[in-house]
């Protein structure tokens, strides 16, 4: 797999969430995603960036434009050193929230992408990787 572009952006404020949405849109366009595919990856990015800020106490996202054979994709890796998630299975259920959200960020973004991976350790932090392919 080839990485065409690779950058890291901070997630420290709600303006950074807007920035993550914009950058994800640009990169999805660069990878010639359809409008629906763009919308799906941007929506997932918005959900996960907000989780990084709200629950992970801030962190960063690594954005990669990738290519595997003829397939082009956008991959995002969100990382924080927050409190971690004690029960991942529960956190991935529709409607589960420990905050005041709708509990659709993790479960919903998983449905919006092709690849989804989450690693979390209590007291250490959380990493969520998503990718959408054209």
């Amino acid at each position: 797999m080839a990485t065409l572009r690779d950058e890291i952006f901070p997630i420290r404020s709600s303006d950074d969430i807007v920035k993550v949405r914009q950058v994800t849109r640009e990169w999805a366009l660069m990878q010639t995603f359809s409008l629906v595919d763009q919308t799906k990856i941007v929506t997932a990015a918005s959900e996960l960036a907000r989780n990084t800020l709200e629950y992970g106490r801030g962190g960063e996202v690594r954005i990669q434009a990738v290519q595997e054979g003829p397939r082009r994709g956008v991959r995002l890796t969100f990382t924080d050193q927050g409190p971690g998630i004690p029960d991942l299975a529960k956190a991935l259920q529709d409607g589960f929230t420990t905050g005041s959200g709708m509990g659709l960020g993790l479960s919903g973004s998983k449905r919006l992408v092709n690849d989804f991976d989450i690693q979390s350790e209590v007291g250490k932090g959380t990493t969520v990787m998503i990718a959408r392919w054209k």
Partner: protein
Amino acid sequence: MERIPILKMGNFLLVTVQVDMHDRLAMTLQDDLTGRIVKDHAHGVLIDISSLEIVDSFIGRMIGNIASMARVLDAETVVVGMRPAVAITLVELGLSLPGVRTALNVDKGVELLKGCIEQRATANGHVAG
């Protein structure tokens, strides 16, 4: 502070949500709108989201909250102009907006609101208008 303008259109309030709202702005809108429904004795709220490129669960929740608060204050809410790609994505995200009506554009939204309000007036035994 940055704010989303709320316009009065007869008995209705019209909110046009601009591109890429950040979270604080969404919260402010929710508060402002509740205040205006009371102050202007509004019977309906139109939320135009045609310029929104995405709706995530945060904005979805805000729209749902506005609709519930409006209902408590005896006003109906209609969301207008949702882009097709946004609608498709919302379904996959798993977000349904119970009690929120949708219309293609502001004109259709106004028609829908008028219909709702007339119906309500008839049900209450009042003459509409």
